[in-house]
């Protein structure tokens, strides 16, 4: 019996001109978004590979020079992009792509792609995420707002109710029927995305499939929330008009007002310091001898152990230039950890503030999850910043320790090192955060999304139970 209802609703949706046309348009938009995402991802990944390879080559082929010159020459780190990012590019347009890892300072990650784009970008790019987050729910609303209320208005609800069929089953049948009509859109979209992902598969994203699978799951849950909500509202109100207005209102709150309001509230609650403030903070801390003292407790034992020195005496007998560099560089590490740590914590606090309130709307729960799984949230950006900085420190320590041990041993003239030393620095590998890392801190939105699902199903079932033919 339920299959009858499912088939009936499915056929009805397909015969509905609204669904057909809107469905075709949305399918085309999805394809276009997927194609644009794919071609952008392919280009960007290729450019990144080339640039990173050239950087590595330049580093290894430096002429003989003082190691500290090499440290100043430095290396650029380029942010890798996970393949699922083509589905939801998240904060990528607004976060930098490269940082210069040189001596003495931790540089900012620069070149945000949005700076090289027009203001039209601020309306949001046409991405798979945009289609799934905003357009498909609106299609669900447009097709489903009258699912029950129109039957009431047409009078068919009376006749169906006279048949001796449980209203809950009838409504579930309807939900399944509409869901299978939407599956006509969603399943090919998922398949296409999967194919594109498979075509792009590269070493940078070992956990791409896990991420993609979970992405698909959270989006399906999100769309189901809208389906149950739409049918529930349609079954609860007297007229299709009321149903439509309520659902459009929910859609608008969900898609427009809630994200911006939360974002502004978070920004006023946890204001991000200005560049001038952070740089002044860094400059001030660099004057503070306390950092050098604390750093010494860290780097001295490390160097002594690493090179099998007898103790601080022997260490202090080595190259004074090397000691000087190690001292100031290591103190810098602590300063940067603190100053940039505060900055990044503040940004993360804004995002955590929003995640903690993600129960407010389904989209507020979905968006952080989607970005986290696509590897395009601030946490992933921060992971890049931190692993680049860690690599910078590897370069600095390698160069400075070499100076410490070898400076002054070559007789007169400045100390020069060569390819052997450059090769001691391992190639830069930016690790991909694991799924567990990606989902750390995403507990609230995950619970919120599941809660929304449960709540809308409950609402739907209650509405079905309360459904009256009159």
């Amino acid at each position, binding site marked *: 019996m339920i299959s009858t209802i499912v088939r009936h609703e499915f056929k*009805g949706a397909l015969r509905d001109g609204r669904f057909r046309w809107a469905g075709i348009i949305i399918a085309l938009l999805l394809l276009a978004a997927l194609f644009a995402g794919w071609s952008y991802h392919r280009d960007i990944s290729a450019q990144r590979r080339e640039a990173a390879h050239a950087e590595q080559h330049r580093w290894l082929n430096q002429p003989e020079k003082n190691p500290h010159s090499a440290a100043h020459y430095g290396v650029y780190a380029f942010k890798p992009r996970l393949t699922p990012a083509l589905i939801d590019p998240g904060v990528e347009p607004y976060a930098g792509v490269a940082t210069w890892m040189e001596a003495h300072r931790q540089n900012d990650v620069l070149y945000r792609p949005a700076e090289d784009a027009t203001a039209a970008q601020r309306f949001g790019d046409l991405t798979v995420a945009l289609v799934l987050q905003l357009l498909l729910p609106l299609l669900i609303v447009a097709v489903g707002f009258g699912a029950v209320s129109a039957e009431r208005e047409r009078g068919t609800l009376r006749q169906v109710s006279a048949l001796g069929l449980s209203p809950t089953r009838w409504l579930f049948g309807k939900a399944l029927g509409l869901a299978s009509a939407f599956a006509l859109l969603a399943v090919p979209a998922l398949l296409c995305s999967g194919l594109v992902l498979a075509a792009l598969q590269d070493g940078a994203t070992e956990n791409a499939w896990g991420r993609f699978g979970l992405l698909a799951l959270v989006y399906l849950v999100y769309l189901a929330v809208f389906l149950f909500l739409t049918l529930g509202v349609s079954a609860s109100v007297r007229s299709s008009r009321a149903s439509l207005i309520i659902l459009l209102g929910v859609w608008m709150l969900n898609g427009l007002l809630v994200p911006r309001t939360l974002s502004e509230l978070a920004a006023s609650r946890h204001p991000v310091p200005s560049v001038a403030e952070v740089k002044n903070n860094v400059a001030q801390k660099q004057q503070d001898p306390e950092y050098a003292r604390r750093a010494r407790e860290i780097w001295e034992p490390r160097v002594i152990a690493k090179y099998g020195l007898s103790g601080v005496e022997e260490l202090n007998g080595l190259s004074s230039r090397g000691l000087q560099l190690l001292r100031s560089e290591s103190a810098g590490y602590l300063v940067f950890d603190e100053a940039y740590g505060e900055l990044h914590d503040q940004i993360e606090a804004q995002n955590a503030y929003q995640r903690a309130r993600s129960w407010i709307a389904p989209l507020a729960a979905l968006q952080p999850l989607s970005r986290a799984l696509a590897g395009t949230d601030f946490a992933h950006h921060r992971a890049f910043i931190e692993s680049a900085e860690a690599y910078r420190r590897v370069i600095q320590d390698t160069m400075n320790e070499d100076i410490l041990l070898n400076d002054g041993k070559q007789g007169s003239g400045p100390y020069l090192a060569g390819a052997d030393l450059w090769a001691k620095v391992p190639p830069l590998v930016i690790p991909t955060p694991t799924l567990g890392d990606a989902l750390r801190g995403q507990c609230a939105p995950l619970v919120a999304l599941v809660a929304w699902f449960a709540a809308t199903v409950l609402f739907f079932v209650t509405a079905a139970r309360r459904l009256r033919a009159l």
Partner: protein
Amino acid sequence: MLQIDRLVKRFGSHTAVNGLTISIAPGELFALLGPNGAGKTTTINCLLGFIQPDEGQAVIDGLSVVQQPLETKRRLAYIPEQVNLYGHFTGLENLAYFAELGGHRYAESRLHDFLAEAGLQPEAHERRVSGYSKGMRQKVGIAIALAKEAKVLLLDEPTSGLDPSASHEFSRLLGRLRERGVAILMATHDLFRAKEDATRVGIMRHGSLVRELTAAEISHTDLEKLYLETMRD
């Protein structure tokens, strides 16, 4: 087959049905007359379980309407004043849908038979219902009732808005259903049809049955005169 026993339904201070008692045997057609607001539709809505009666009870095929609303509804068919169908489905598809929801799955040829029996011309079976006239929709409604093989048929103003020949054809069909032993309750304003088709007639006023005529009485009564007199009292 259908027993209504001291049924009471109040809406606030207004009593819509006031102690109504009717019993209809298989093969009987009980025509319920009465002015607008007399409580005819409320009675039918109670039988359909759309509203809960405040007192009394109704029993269909031995089952209480209040206690087992879904079970009783499986045993009855219902044709409203205006049969409402799904516009972008054909007459046949509408029939198949309603029949299957009612628990009966038929081969397509059987469905065509039902529609033909209800008087819908064959070329209309596979056309979308959005192009149907009111009479054609009514015929699909009858086919749905036929396909349900119900023991009780509830009719709410089934002939209003039908032209005389369609209305006549409808009467013929009701006769056939009676022959099969269906108990029919028909609320109507159509005194002529009531006189023609009914085996019993009841006149309702302010929620109660104020007059009841047997088959024998109907044939030699001027129903219109009786009706007007009843209203005047």
